[in-house]
Every structure is written in structure tokens, then in C-alpha cells.
């Protein structure tokens, strides 16, 4: 039984695309045939983060409009087996996404894939609504910062009222919290909301905490999902999150700053 998972947040710039890329790669690494679909029509970036921007010929919108077949638009990842990317159009606008069109493409993807990850655009308008409408589960990507938390709460309200599952009065979309850009040093000095603060406010189960790290920018510079950098903390945090999603019981890591002596600190700084 295939599952449609939306990566959403309301707010922009919190790490939806980064998380979608890593989450999809993580599911594929665990042996599940996975596709990640870019819903950000007009501002496509998933292809860049996945490092396949030069291989895009046809896209999601071409398939919706019948200008290309699904097989022609799907890009197979060169590093990870079982992983595919469906890029979106850079030139059209979000009105190109029609509900019947999206339903038809997702239906066809369901026949082929175990997991379909929908990378949502920011906002709560058409593009974002289309990305979440057909979802079975939702990963709410949130930064420990007030505007992000507020927007996450908004998007939870939208999921509960305007998704297909809500409209058909089916079992509600299953919600997961993914806290990203968690800066341990600022949490320790009381300058950043803690995991517990955010969980208390949003009141949804925690899938993972991804620490703030330079390796995320490095990964996107290189066009490689950060989960493939298994030496990095974000890479490990995403792998854990994927594991929990698949039912592994794993303790949360990277929730407290490592204690560093003055020498280590000096060394780290000069390194």
C-alpha cells in the first residue's frame, strides 16, 4: 500500500525542500521505492538540491497537461537506488496544478511507488493546498522561531479542514513534527525555543530534530541530499527521523550541546 507524504510548513525557508530530499533518499536507502515530487511551480528547486537540474527534460506540469508521459518526466537518482524525482515547471504558474490533474498523476505514481513525497511550496495558497490535499501523512517542518511555529499551527488547521481526508471525513492526515535548524548553543543560553516548547505549543508527535549545521548548506551546494553525508549530524538526524517514520524506536539525539573544554574550543575555532 503506497503512501503520500507532504512536506509542509506554511513559512518559507525553513527547510522543506532540504527535508523532502533527505527524507525521500532515506526511505529509498531503506529499500522502499520512493519518488519526490516538486509542487513549487514556478520556483522549482528540488532538482537543484537533488543535483539533477541538468537532466530535467519534461516535468510534472507537462504530465498533467498530457504533453509528456510520466515515465519521460521521472528522473532516476544516480546515487541512490529506488529513488526518483519528478521536477516541476519553472515557467508556469501554480494555476497549472489542477485537482483532477494532480489526482491522476499521483494515482499513477501510487501504482509504481511505495512512498510519494510531496515537496510543498510556502504559503497556504493553491500550490500548498494541492501538495497537501491528497496526503496520507504530513511532516510539518518547523524552525524553533515564533513565526515558523505560528505558521505551522496554521498549516495544521488547513490539514485538518481542507485535505481530501478531512473533506471525505476519513481518518485524518497523520501529523509529524520535524524541527530543523535547532541551534543547541542558543537553546542552552535561553535564546531559542526548546524542542519541548515547540512540542507543547503544536501538540503533535515529534519525528526528529535536525541540528543547525554547516553541512546542510554544503550538501545543497553540492546537490546531494544531506542524509548521504552520514558523518554529519543532520545526516544522522534525518536517518533517525526516517527510521522512526518506519517504526524504529530510536532515542532523539543532538538535543544537548556537547561539553567542550577550553582547549577543544580554541582548537575548533582555529580549525
Amino acid at each position, binding site marked *: 500500500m503506497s503512501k503520500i507524504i507532504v512536506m509542509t510548513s506554511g513559512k518559507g525557508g525553513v527547510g522543506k525542500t532540504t527535508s523532502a530530499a533527505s527524507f525521500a533518499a532515506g526511505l529509498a536507502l531503506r529499500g522502499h521505492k520512493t519518488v519526490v515530487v516538486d509542487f513549487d511551480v514556478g520556483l522549482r528547486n528540488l532538482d537543484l538540491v537533488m543535483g539533477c537540474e541538468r537532466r530535467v527534460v519534461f516535468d510534472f506540469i507537462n504530465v498533467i497537461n498530457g504533453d509528456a508521459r510520466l515515465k519521460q518526466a521521472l528522473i532516476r537518482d544516480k546515487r541512490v537506488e529506488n529513488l526518483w524525482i519528478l521536477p516541476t515547471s519553472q515557467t508556469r504558474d501554480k494555476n497549472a496544478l489542477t485537482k483532477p490533474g494532480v489526482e491522476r498523476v499521483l494515482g499513477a505514481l501510487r501504482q509504481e511507488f511505495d512512498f510519494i513525497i510531496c515537496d510543498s511550496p510556502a504559503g497556504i495558497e493553491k500550490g500548498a493546498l494541492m501538495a497537501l490535499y491528497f496526503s496520507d501523512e504530513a511532516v510539518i517542518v518547523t524552525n524553533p522561531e*515564533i513565526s515558523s511555529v*505560528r505558521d505551522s499551527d*496554521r498549516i495544521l*488547521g488547513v490539514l485538518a479542514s481542507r485535505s481530501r481526508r478531512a473533506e471525505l471525513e476519513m481518518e485524518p492526515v497523520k501529523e509529524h513534527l520535524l524541527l530543523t535548524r535547532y541551534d543547541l548553543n542558543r537553546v542552552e543560553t*535561553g*535564546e531559542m*525555543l526548546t524542542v519541548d516548547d515547540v512540542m507543547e*505549543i503544536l501538540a503533535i508527535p515529534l519525528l526528529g530534530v535536525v541540528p543547525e549545521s554547516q553541512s546542510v548548506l554544503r550538501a545543497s551546494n553540492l546537490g546531494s541530499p544531506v542524509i548521504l553525508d552520514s558523518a554529519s549530524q543532520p545526516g544522522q538526524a534525518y536517518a533517525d527521523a526516517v527510521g522512526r517514520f518506519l517504526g524504529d524506536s530510536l532515542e532523539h539525539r543532538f538535543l544537548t550541546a556537547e561539553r567542550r573544554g577550553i582547549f577543544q574550543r580554541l582548537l575548533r575555532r582555529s580549525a
Partner: protein
Amino acid sequence: MSLLDLFRRQPPSAPAARERLQILMAHERAGVRGPDYLPKLHKDLLRVCKKYMQISDDKVSVRVEELGNVSMLEVNIELPGGGAYAR
């Protein structure tokens, strides 16, 4: 900046963020999930209050609170001018 400021620590700001969010969320959730007539009721109440006192719009709040299987309508009207029903 004086030399002293270098040693003086500002109080942490995260608790303020948390408190503001909690208040805001309670308000927004009530607003979003309450019945449709809530904004209109709010407006009508304001109009009535203004007949008897000088009061600014933000001193009248209307919200719905869910307590178990009971929904409560909570109306808060803050009288202008301070205590002892000052006007």
C-alpha cells in the same frame, strides 16, 4: 557601550517567545475554530459597549473555549480608566 555592559548578561529571550506564542495560539485557534458568528458577535458587543462607555476595540475580547465536551463562550470586557469602575 560602557565597559560594564560587556559583563552584564541580557535576560534570555526564549521564555518571552514561548509566552507570546502560547497566548497568540490560544487566541488564533479560538478564532479559527470557533463558530462563524464570532466576529459579528464581537462587533455587535463592541457597538453596545460603546453606547455606555468610551472603550477601544481591543478591550473587548470574545472567544470560545473547549473544556471536555462543553464549549464555553468567554467574553472579556475591560472597563476603561482603571479600578473602582473609573470612567
